[in-house]
């Protein structure tokens, strides 16, 4: 019966999905940049390896689907909290089918599946920030109010606040949890504005860690039984300044994991490629 925050970041499983060749040409992306699929796959493999071997997570790997170029970004397909998994309805029409495989996988993990059947609702998992105590849902191009409402309905224990995402694709394009009660936030104006909104909306106090690069603010925090605090973050190659900041403030954490996934480039954030869950958790967080 650990306290709310005590269980935060404690995962047992991770769900990932392979990279289809179609990612290179057909995937949705903000910038037009060529993606080296082979390199991306190498990076992704390394990533999965870290999850499995170094972190000891049980990794469920879904096969890539060529008809779903963005299927590698599994984070958008579902939101898992506690023993409930909300299967989303991605804002991009082309990605709606990504949820099918995800639903099956999560069902097999014995999670309570909640589906978003409302035709008017859209929600990308990338817009959902779970702080351990509450949800923030970014209202973006991909996520609308109705989607947020359904999420709130699925996770009744928690407050669900909406945060306008004015720039960037997702809420988590510029922020994430860097630890219990610690929000890592990009330094751009939209990011800072969103942070202010979140701080105002919350009954809880969060520390913040501002990194120079918005994309570097996307990290994955874990608190693993045998590993202690783990933070997956970008590489120093990508965002050297941001990594400095991350390292300086994360000294208390025992383990820092730096993942090299350059191959995915700026298309991919770490959290996007993975859904984490803890099968052993129960109750509130």
């Amino acid at each position: 019966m650990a306290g709310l925050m005590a269980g935060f970041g404690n995962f047992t499983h991770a769900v990932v999905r392979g990279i289809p060749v179609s990612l290179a040409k057909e995937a949705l992306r903000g910038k037009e940049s060529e993606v080296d699929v082979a390199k991306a796959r190498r990076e992704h493999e390394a990533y999965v390896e870290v999850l499995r071997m170094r972190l000891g997570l049980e990794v469920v790997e879904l096969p890539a689907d060529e008809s779903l170029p963005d299927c590698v970004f599994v984070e958008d397909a579902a939101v898992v909290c506690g023993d409930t998994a909300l299967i989303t309805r991605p804002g991009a029409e082309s990605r709606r089918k990504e949820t099918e495989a995800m639903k099956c996988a999560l069902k097999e993990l014995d999670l309570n599946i909640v589906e978003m059947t409302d035709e008017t609702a859209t929600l990308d998992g990338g817009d959902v920030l779970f702080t351990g105590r509450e949800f923030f849902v970014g209202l973006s191009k991909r996520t609308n109010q109705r989607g947020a409402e359904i999420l709130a309905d699925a996770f009744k224990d928690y407050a669900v606040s909406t945060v306008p995402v004015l720039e960037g694709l997702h809420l988590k394009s510029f922020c994430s949890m860097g630890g219990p009660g610690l929000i890592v936030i990009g330094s751009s104006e939209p990011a800072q504005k969103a942070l202010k909104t979140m701080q105002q909306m919350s009954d809880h106090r969060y520390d913040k860690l501002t990194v120079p690069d918005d994309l570097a603010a996307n990290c994955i925090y874990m608190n693993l039984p045998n590993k202690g605090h783990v933070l997956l973050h970008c590489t120093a190659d990508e965002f050297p300044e941001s990594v400095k900041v991350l390292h300086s403030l994360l000294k208390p954490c025992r383990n820092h994991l730096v993942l090299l996934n350059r191959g995915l480039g700026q298309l991919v954030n770490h959290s996007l490629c993975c859904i984490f869950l803890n099968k052993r958790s129960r109750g509130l967080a």
Partner: protein
Amino acid sequence: MTTEAGTETEVKEKSEESAAQPDQSEKATEENQEVASAENVATEGEEKKEKDKEGKGISRFLPPWLKKQKSQSQVPGKETSPTKEAPRTQEAVAKVTEEEEGPAPAVNGHPEEVEEKEEVKLEQKRESPSKASADTQPAKEEKVEESAEKAPEEAKSTAEGEGAEEEKKEQKGEVEGEGEGETLTSIFQSPLRLVRKAKMKLVVCHVTLLDGTEFPCEVEKRAKGQYLFFKVCEHLNLLEKDYFGLTYKDNHEQRCWLDPTKEIKRQIRSNNWQFAFNVKFYPPDPSLLTEDITRYLLCLQLREDVASGRLPCSFVTHALLGSYTLQAELGDYEPEQPRPLDYISQLTFAPNQNKEMEEKILELYMSHRGMTPAQADSQFLENAKKLSMYGVDLHHAKDSEGVDIMLGVCANGLLVYKDRLRINRFAWPKILKISYKRNNFYIKIRPGEAEQFESTVGFKLPNHRSAKRLWKVCVENHSFFRLNTPEPPTKARFLTLGSKFRYSGRTQTQTRQASSLIDRPAPTFERTSSKRISRSLDGAPVISITEAGRDLASSAENGREPNLELPSDSKVQEVELSLGDVEATPTQSHGPTEPVLSQSPLRVHGDNIYVRHSNLMLEDHDKTQEEVLKHQASISQLKRSFMEAPPPSPPQPNQWEKRLTSSPATTLRIQQQQQQVVSVAQTEAAAADNTNSDTKEPGKTTEVEIEETVVIQEVSKATKPGHVTVTMAPPVTPPVQQEVREQEVKAAEEAVALEEAKAGKQESISSESESEEEAEYHPNVAASISHTQIPEEKEEEIEEEKREEDMKVENSYSTPDAASLPTVASQSAEAAAAEAEESRREEERGKKERAEEEERAEERETEESTEDPMVTPDETPNGHTLSEEGTAALVALAEEEKEPKMNGETSLAEAEPRPQVICCSEPPVVKTEMVTISDTFAAQKTEIATKEVPIVHTETKTITYEAAQLDGSADGEPGVLMTAQTITSESLCTTTTTHITKTLKGGLSETRIEKRIVITGDADIDHDQALAQAIKEAKEQHPDMSVTRVVVHKETELAEEED
């Protein structure tokens, strides 16, 4: 007629929320009114008789013009009102008024006036008991109170009347009221004790406890909520009782918290003595509670909250909480127990409980083996407290765009939900003020780092009752969780308008301290769930609407509320109409209601008050707040100084002020008053009478809705050489308390204005103007010195001065003294200036004092002030007094704002001529034109106390129009106020009050006519047009006169503005 019109309009307004049935509602309203009026008459009849007798007896020995005075003066003395000490001048005034009334009995207005007076008295009596110990009160008072009580009920019923049902209720009420009236009469002469014995009826209250059992408790019929609550806690063996409270269902099936400081009977309205014991403040950390029994009771509440869906939680949480419940109530799981699931399924754990959940509950329950009941409760609480909706009291509302939202009040602040999503949050420290007006609920937000202005956020509640309920919950939650000690009730400090409601219990801090001292062996108690099983869900403590039940609740509310609203609106409109109709419309029906209202402030607020605003000041003070406080303090001091300073002529409070101050009048009442006043004005003397009566009564809450007030000052030309010594008009006869109130009110108004100004960028201007408004009042001065050219800065100073002057002037006008004191030269600039100087000095002193005071009570004051502002508007209607006070307040505010400049300003102001620019802020002050009248002396003798027409301010926006001043000739030369007349005429939406002041100068007489035009209407009114029209009319009426000043005081309802 008026009524109908009002109703219709109301209906229109509320049509949005509910499809109203105008016809029925109208009918109901009318009937109610009739009934009420009848009752009033009956109740008041006795008192009247007495008064008459007295008057007659005394009158024999006095000259005719004195007779009436005396009679009146005596009456007041009897009544024990604080005001009674008022100087003789008041009496004189009273005389005047009486005389006026006497002669013109036939006038429609008169009867009403009489009633009003009586009512006022009643109110006074009522209030006085509250201040003093009730025990000491004479039988009379009790009687009055009783009648008053009944009356309010009726009034309420009328207000809320829902078609035929309501009517029936009312009829019943009437019958009862009559019966009581009889008893009262019989009791009337007997001492209190007798009365008490007779009244010592016992009533059995049925209190539903958290475990579902019912606790019958016998209480005295007039017992306060506290008594019953303590009885229940005693029964429960509960020491940490501050987290709990009793609820009852009002006539609209809404759960309300029983106010411990008020009589139960007055709160429940119906004869349904059913209550529920519930958690009122959910401790954020239940582990900090001292006793297990407290935690147990909290668990019971939460179990019900969870089971009813009021506290939403996930499947897993439902199961977990259920398992702890079983562990606490049953102890360890016993494997031998047959078919545990059957048992579990009999219990209600969740709104959507199913087999799967029960199995999960059982599974978890089995894992709790070894856990003691207390531990299980603690675990239950540890999980429950994390739920996002834990301790959140939800209220349906609409945002400014009409979107359905929910407002959640909790320990941390105010949460805004749309559907299930939190869309905004206002932590207590972020909130500067909380207020409500009608069905609007406002919070003023502290400006953020990057923001310059405070902003006000408004929400629409289904009706005014729900708005008030929400407001009260906010006040209580803030007090409980954020304050170290509860704020003292407003009463203690001053008489203030608006809701005096404050959290009266201990704060969390205090209760923790107290509970840390608990030294007793843990009481044994039995945990049982059997009762809970069968328990119905209606026990829900808070009115909060469950999300699940939202639809139902909303629909229900809609059905009921619309009706309610309609009536209320109709009332308002009626009031307004009455104002306009002054002569024609008798307020008879209103009369009865008013007294009632006065008796129970709460009720009044809920039902009748439209303008009410109560403010919750947070601990943090903004500069603004401080300023406000300072203003208030300064104002109060100023008033005091005024009071003290000018001994010669007792200042007379405006009728309105008095009324307002004295009686927590409802809008209706105010309206009535206004009407009466108008009639009086016509009669000339009558107004004075009213004033007197009003003065006697300390009105606490008056709420008048005047949305827009246009004050047009017409300044006549040269004053005559004769010096008019300005009597220290400021010295207001009414007791200091009243003044204080007024001051507060004004201050509050000012504060509001300031706030508004800040909130709205436009407003910033308005705020200034408001301050100026006071200044405006100096019509006289302006006329004489008239110079618009003074730089703005100076203007402000000047304005301040003007304000003071105005106040003085107003006082002089208002003061019946005029009659007794021939010397009042209201409009002479010099006199005004002199007064202004004096006032300044006084103010300065006051400032010092203020500072001290401020320090002490900054928070309180701020809060009060905030509240007051809302109230103020109502009071404002009083007219002169209000205006005076208001002006004073304004001045004070201005001073405060520019404190550093103050000294210089004052001097400057004195030296400089007064600017003609007039800003009318709060009290609708009418500017007077000087018209020369040949018979000066006669006029002096005739002294007519001018009463200003009560103008109600809701919100204050002051728009200043500069009128070209015609004659500077009078500069510096004070004129003598020969006569002042108040003439009121009405048009549909406008009430016009005209003051005519005659000044003798040398051989010339000047006549100033001040016209105050009150235009009531929706925000849509084109002020400029209204103003233009008013000026045009004024010119037409007095072709030989020139318009020297135009002051526009715009009072808009916050809600409307925001909307």
